[in-house]
């Protein structure tokens, strides 16, 4: 699959669409991804979180998991988790469904659906507590840990949305940020815990980034995820190199360093060119096709609630 990325990169370079020839961002210990050239933006009206729903954003999913697990409490909570039925390495497809479903419900669900999912997640989270052997103390109900995960989810939507639709104006970014609150409040994060403005979110994010650490245990776990060690080898062979490329591309420099993965200016250029290309194609894809994965997830969760089936 990586050859597609190279073909698109060559195409964009031949067409001369980029104004700056080479990407510049390396070496800075940035806490957010840096993109030299975003696709142009054609509207300045308010942007809701629902507009950020798009199947291409799956490209950033693994990078987001890395960011979430970079907080030691979250990382060890996930790696040591005794909840076998939700283990990423044991049931990767189920874990993909439940995590994506949580995000779909947080954005699209009504209050009852959010409450139903919260109850289901709480049952699993109750078993996620550190033991005497754990290197760090954690508890899945810890609101600071949950706020970090919710903040990562917001970054997921902001980064993917801007790569696909262009950079938001400050007013748009502010409104978009406020729509994102249910990403955390669907679980135990409270409204007053969220940084009240987009600027204060940056402060929270940058301050928290300085406290992140990653040890060998979490790093090994994440590298197995990035290399797709948990799925069928036939699927893995074509997908793993692409996922690795996308994951490292969506990781801010600071997280690349934590994970210990290299990233070159050439790869950065390929990454940006890929999304310049995808963003153009994407403007022609009808919304109901781009959001079909969310439609299916919501239909499934409503079916499960109606039939009283297990949500997670």
């Amino acid at each position, binding site marked *: 699959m990586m050859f597609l990325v190279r073909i698109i990169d060559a195409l964009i370079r031949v067409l001369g669409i980029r104004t700056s020839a080479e990407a510049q961002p390396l070496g800075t210990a940035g806490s957010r991804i840096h993109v030299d050239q975003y696709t142009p933006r054609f509207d300045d009206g308010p942007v809701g979180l629902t507009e950020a729903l798009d199947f291409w954003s799956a490209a950033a999913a693994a990078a987001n998991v890395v960011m979430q697990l970079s907080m030691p409490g979250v990382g060890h909570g996930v790696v040591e988790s005794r909840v076998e039925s939700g283990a990423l390495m044991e049931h990767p497809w189920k874990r993909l469904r439940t995590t994506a479903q949580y995000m779909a419900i947080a954005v699209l669900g009504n209050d009852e659906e959010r409450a139903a999912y919260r109850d289901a997640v709480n049952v699993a989270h109750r078993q996620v507590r550190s033991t005497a052997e754990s290197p760090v103390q954690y508890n899945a109900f810890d609101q600071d840990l949950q706020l970090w995960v919710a903040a990562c989810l917001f970054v997921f939507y902001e980064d993917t949305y801007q790569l696909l639709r262009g950079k938001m104006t400050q007013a748009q970014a502010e409104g978009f940020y406020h729509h994102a609150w249910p990403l955390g409040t669907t679980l135990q994060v409270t409204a007053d815990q969220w940084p009240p403005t987009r600027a204060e979110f940056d402060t929270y994010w940058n301050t928290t980034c300085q406290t992140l650490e990653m040890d060998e245990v979490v790093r090994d776990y994440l590298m197995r995820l990035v290399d797709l060690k948990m799925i069928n080898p036939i699927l893995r062979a074509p997908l793993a190199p692409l996922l690795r490329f996308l994951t490292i591309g969506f990781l801010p420099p600071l997280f690349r360093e934590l994970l210990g993965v290299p990233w070159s200016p050439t790869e950065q250029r390929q990454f940006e060119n890929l999304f310049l290309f995808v963003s153009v194609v994407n*403007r*022609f*894809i*009808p*919304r109901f*096709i781009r959001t079909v994965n969310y439609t299916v997830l919501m239909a499934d969760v409503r079916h499960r609630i109606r039939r009283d089936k297990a949500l997670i």
Partner: protein
Amino acid sequence: MPGFLDNVGRLLNYRMPIGELIGLGLFLGAPYLTIGLIWTLTHTGSLHGIRGLDLVVSFLGSIVAWPVLLIANVCMQ
């Protein structure tokens, strides 16, 4: 049936950017025209004895109008 009417109303009220409409047109048009091309290439009988511009128009017309030609022989004079 209010449920049915609701759905029709929602469909009629669905907003779509022009770009996505063009994309949807390409998305639906590509298979339609591919079938039309295959159908035309395998049903060349009607094109015998036609020349020049008439042949081009008949050929393209057949690609576009293949569903009609499936059930009836239409002559364009």
